[in-house]
């Protein structure tokens, strides 16, 4: 953002934020963990005729419906928390002062990376919410009385979103680890100071 506008904040830390650790990279772990567990358990539950003997072998009692419960409740929690992930991301990107003279491992500059990561975040939030609605219809209406609660196309969409999340996560990692966005030590080095003063 414009350095003069940033001064309106008054007391920002060396990392460009009014607090030491950015919030968005914390919340995104909840988004990812909950979503990945949701899809993974729906896959295990959908393939239950194949994998139920493995649970028996491990002496872990299991019911197919409880595996689908994990798929549903984890997805629901992921959809809720991701609104906060995106909100925190938008706030923190608005205070970002990336290093301008470098390009990332993907050959992108900071501004392109920020825009792609921002648009990507909104797209993924939309997909997670849409999948939650889709999953809800399957669970409570369309497939209510079926042994397999989810459609194969739903699981395929979930795997596709994994791929989007991988790309999105890499762009976000570039913002922190290569462009130094909100990394205190990187910003100190950029100012010519020693991070050992931390």
């Amino acid at each position, binding site marked *: 953002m414009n350095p003069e506008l940033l001064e309106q904040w008054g007391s920002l830390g060396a*990392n460009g934020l009014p607090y*030491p*650790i*950015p919030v968005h*990279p*914390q919340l995104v*772990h*909840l988004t990812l*963990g*909950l979503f990945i*567990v949701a899809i*993974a*358990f729906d896959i295990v539950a959908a393939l239950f005729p194949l994998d139920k003997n493995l649970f028996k072998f491990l002496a*872990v*009692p299991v*019911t197919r419906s*409880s*595996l689908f*419960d*994990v798929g549903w*409740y*984890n997805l629901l*929690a992921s959809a809720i928390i991701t609104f906060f992930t995106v909100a925190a991301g938008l706030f923190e990107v608005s205070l970002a002062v990336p*290093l301008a003279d*470098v390009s990332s491992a993907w050959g992108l500059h900071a501004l392109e990376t920020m825009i792609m990561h921002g648009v990507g975040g909104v797209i993924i939030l939309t997909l997670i919410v849409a999948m939650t609605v889709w999953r809800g219809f399957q669970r409570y209406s369309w497939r209510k009385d079926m042994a397999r609660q989810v459609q194969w196309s739903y699981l395929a969409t979930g795997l596709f979103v994994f791929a989007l999340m991988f790309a999105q996560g890499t762009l976000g990692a570039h913002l*922190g*680890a*290569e462009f*130094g966005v*909100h*990394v*205190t*030590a*990187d910003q100190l*080095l*950029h100012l010519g100071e*020693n*991070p*050992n*003063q*931390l």
Partner: protein
Amino acid sequence: MVLFAVLCDVIGYFTKNSKLYEVSWWNLAFATISIFIAVIFGQIEAGLAEPYAASVSTLNAHTVLGWSLSVILAVVTGWRYVIRLQERPQLPIPYLAASVLLVGLVFVQSYLGSLLVWVYGLHSIPVVDAIRGGLS
């Protein structure tokens, strides 16, 4: 996953929704496998980090707590496995207390890891360049 497992336990405890206990157990079981992968990668990357003086004590604390958490989490999951086999209608209070303590440790560990990345910038390009340039 641990956070969501404990959240499900607490909601399940007050709403008496036993479905949520199952959701909690499976999240915990998944977390127990995941943490070993996390610790192994953490150990490799910590070994490659060449931390500068100010960051050393935080890295040490994060390493010790990471290994400890893998053991603590495995023990809690084992405890949960036994409770689940007993098919009790409610979770025992000592178990709930231990899992709340576990959540506390997970928060401390995330805080330490965040300090390493976002404050000390370990493995970020400018810090790596500075360390190669003689920062110690």
